[in-house]
């Protein structure tokens, strides 16, 4: 079958219709990826609800710093907003706001990571002593498992954002063609979506164990 019969031409950049069709398929693939990731995060959530149970069968949680939990949560929510702005900007060929939106998102994402790694984990005890260690029984294991897996996704999201920013600076993406930006944005919002459920599960639901 000739290339013409397949609707292609040698060295031809795909048409607008081809691009739209490919983007629709890409979107579906991205959501299937999210569905597969959901099993991982649901497993972690299930372990939290199965293991964090008091002597009387009531739900308990570790006595973590509520303020740091709330602050990192707000920071991540704000980063979703700036990512959304960046995506809207490139969809309207507003490159300046697109690049700024990405920079703000990467900074807020890094602030979230620092909040978790420095304040919650206490990875640098000379700066802040953490609240839990991974070896602190069932609380430590589950908190580090949940926040660790989530932080890994935040880190990979920041790498994607920096990559998109770099390409955007070099003139890639336009209002008509910006699947790379859209994919990065919905990945980032997915990371935020996971934290929407992880935050209450780790910090809020149940009574603080050992607290008065």
């Amino acid at each position, binding site marked *: 079958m000739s290339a013409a019969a397949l609707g292609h031409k040698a060295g031809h950049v795909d048409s*607008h219709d081809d691009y739209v069709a490919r983007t629709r398929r890409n979107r579906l693939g991205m959501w299937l990826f999210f569905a597969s990731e959901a099993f991982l995060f649901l497993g972690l959530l299930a372990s939290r609800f199965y293991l964090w149970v008091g002597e009387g069968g009531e739900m308990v949680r570790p006595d973590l710093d509520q303020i740091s939990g709330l602050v990192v949560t707000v920071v991540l929510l704000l980063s*979703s907003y700036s990512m959304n702005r960046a995506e809207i900007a490139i969809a309207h060929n507003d490159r300046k706001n697109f690049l700024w939106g990405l920079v703000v998102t990467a900074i807020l994402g890094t602030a979230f990571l620092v909040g978790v790694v420095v304040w919650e984990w206490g990875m640098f005890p000379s700066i802040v002593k953490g609240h839990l260690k991974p070896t602190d029984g069932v609380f430590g294991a589950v908190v580090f498992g949940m926040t660790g897996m989530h932080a890994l996704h935040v880190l990979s999201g920041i790498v994607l954002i920096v990559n998109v920013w770099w390409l955007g600076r070099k003139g890639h993406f336009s*209002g008509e063609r*910006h699947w790379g930006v859209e994919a990065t944005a919905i990945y980032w919002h997915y990371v935020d979506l996971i934290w929407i459920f992880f935050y209450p599960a780790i910090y809020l639901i149940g009574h603080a164990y050992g607290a008065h």
Partner: protein
Amino acid sequence: MSERKPPAAKAGIYRTGYFVAIVLAVVTVVEFYIALTFNNFAIMILLGLVKAYFVVNYFMHIKSLWSEEESH
């Protein structure tokens, strides 16, 4: 991907994002307050689902999976 939209449409989409961010912030504060007062599991889950709805619907454009229109 989509036809270029006028600046008014762009401003409207920005406003939607701003509104969603405000809703998420308010619900997070309510969630925090409920946790510190009467700590009801069902309400916490419900508030989480409300936040998830806004993120999936407005930020992740889930409708674009089956809609003919583009996400913006």
